[in-house]
């Protein structure tokens, strides 16, 4: 499919959503061009699901405008919905309908009928590798197969914009790879993708542009290289010790330049100012604490680090 340059598939202007006094989405603005795979990163409660729900029409905004392919999504509700496909985080399929019936039912709601509908359903099932299971009920499917059917239900009507909310949660690596390849293929076939995930490496691997959302606002946006360049002044040091029992994290936190300290099993992860040479003091403090150091390495800068630096918390928090 031929791609038009600089066409905004999605444009959000000053979008705000409040639940009582709580502001879930705070004056958010965003543009996504045709052909992008746009990563939407944010910890739980950051506001990304609320934003996605407003884009898909599940929630009404308090303020702001959402344009889909240049048209106001509220005024041209049907047009907007016809051009969006949602792959929700939770499986949204009927266990008592076969795979074929599931896809056919949902695709039928998009105005497809007869032979065209049948062809699109078969195409969607083939795309997710479930053609041979089309007569089977999802209750007999593995988690990965259900996730794939969840995708098929969202793409049979060939939407211009596909929103995938955590599509790889709880599945095996093989199914995850299948889904990631599917995302790329859908993008190559002309769909623009909004992709949210807790798995930073997935986002890093497939997304052409990424937005980091925190407290209802986009705090950083760009390609992964652009995001990494924001935080060249920080470093991550991972120190593996024999045991972290009895370790006083406050003493490490108090060292000049150290911004955050975390423990994951026997690894102490220290996020520090790159401009301060504090490695000796860190080692000295650990030895004072009685820690037996096994290994030490300075991590290459990744999106996880970027996210942690910008939001002060892990993506899985």
């Amino acid at each position, binding site marked *: 499919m031929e791609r038009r340059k600089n066409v905004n598939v999605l444009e959000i202007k000053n979008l705000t959503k409040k639940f009582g006094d709580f502001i879930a989405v705070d004056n958010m603005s965003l543009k996504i061009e045709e052909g992008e795979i746009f990563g939407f990163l944010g910890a739980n409660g950051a506001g990304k699901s609320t934003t996605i729900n407003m884009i898909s*029409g*599940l929630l009404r905004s308090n303020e702001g405008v959402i344009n889909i392919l240049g048209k106001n999504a509220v005024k041209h509700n049907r047009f907007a919905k016809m051009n969006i496909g949602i792959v929700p985080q*939770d499986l*949204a399929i009927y266990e008592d309908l076969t795979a074929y019936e599931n896809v056919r*039912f949902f695709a039928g*709601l998009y105005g497809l009928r007869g032979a065209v509908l049948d062809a699109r359903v078969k195409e969607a099932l083939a795309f997710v590798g479930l053609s041979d299971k089309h007569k089977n009920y999802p209750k007999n499917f593995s988690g990965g197969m259900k996730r794939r059917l969840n995708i098929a*239900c969202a793409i049979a009507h060939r939407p211009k914009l596909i929103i995938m909310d955590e599509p790889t949660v709880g599945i095996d690596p093989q199914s995850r790879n299948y889904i990631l390849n599917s995302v790329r293929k859908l993008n190559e076939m002309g769909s623009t993708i909004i992709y949210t995930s807790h798995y930073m490496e997935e986002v890093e691997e497939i997304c052409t542009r990424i937005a980091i959302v925190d407290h209802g606002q986009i705090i950083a946006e760009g390609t992964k290289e652009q995001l990494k360049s924001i935080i060249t002044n920080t470093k991550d040091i991972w120190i593996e010790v024999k045991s972290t029992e009895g370790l006083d994290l406050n003493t490490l936190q108090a060292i000049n330049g150290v911004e955050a300290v975390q423990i994951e099993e026997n690894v102490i992860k220290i996020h520090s100012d790159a401009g301060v040479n504090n490695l000796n003091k860190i080692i000295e403090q650990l030895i004072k604490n009685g820690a037996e150091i096994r290994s030490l390495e300075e991590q290459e800068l990744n999106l996880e680090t970027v996210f942690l630096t910008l939001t002060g918390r892990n993506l899985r928090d």
Partner: protein
Amino acid sequence: MLNIVNIFLKELKQTFRDFRMFVFMIAFPIVFMLVLGMALSNAFSTSKISIDNIHVLYKNLGNNQLAQSFETLKKETAKSGIQFKEATGNVDGKKAVKQNNVDGYVEISNNGIKLYESDRNSIEGNIIQGMLTAFVDKYNVAMSVAKVDPSKVNMVLASNHSKQYIKETSLHAAKSPGAMDYYAIAMTAMIAFYAALNGTSLMNTEIARKTGDRLLVSPARKSEIFLGKVLGSITINFIFIVIVVLFSKFVFKANWGDHLGVIFLVLLTEVLMAVSFGLGVSYITKTGGAARTIVMIVIQIASFIGGAYFKIDYAGNIPKLSPLSWVIEGITKVIYANDLGAAIPSIILNIGITLIMMLIAVVSFQRREGL
């Protein structure tokens, strides 16, 4: 419109694949019908009243043809258990009736026959009255004949015999519901009300399965989703009811009368009412669990006081609070009294509740951002 059909057909397909639903909505009422219909059959048998000999005092003061004919009547009726005894001397016939010593007192004069009876023995009194009326009618016929051809009078009077004085007429003996007939109606009405449970889960299951969100992000309008699902539920539950009715009619030979169309109309409005009731409660309570509990309690109480498990006296006010009693009473009258108008109150009440509950559901549905 096509979306409504699409959603409607999906509802049908899903329910017909739900084995538990089938068992509950079809097997459950049929089994109950069978068990209660057989176990409580004695409670529904037509009661028999035995009447002993009827004792009547009489005073024959006349000397005309009527007085003579009465003597003949006296002999004939003795064979049917009506014992006439002459009130001689100081015997006060009226007092004897008052004191319940006899069932009636008859005075015959040249002017006619007077009967004194006690309300305490109404059945016996009615029998005596009926017999005397028949006798007097015959006598009058004989007198009319005498005016034309006196030679035929004796022939007319001779044709009198006891069986003609007392004619047995069955009081709805064949038109009273037996146990199976009653429980066919009661169980069908009860299971129709159980459609309320389906109403509570109509939207809640879509929300719980997350398919509700997928429906809402599709171009289908909220009103189309609502209509498709509600019409689907009503249709499915009505199909269940039709199956139960036909099964009881042809297998259990339950009496559904000659106006099945009217009965189905009453049951359809009950299903409408039940589904709307469940749906309305689910929107009022906002949680599926609470709605289900409330509806289940209402169904049980309505079934209990409405005559689902045992036949009730509809004269009281409490049973009238139950939708089941409206339906059972209405259908019973349609079947056993051929009173088609009896269906109207049931239909009006059912539609009234449907409108109220549907209004609650529609307003809540429109206000909500989700289903």
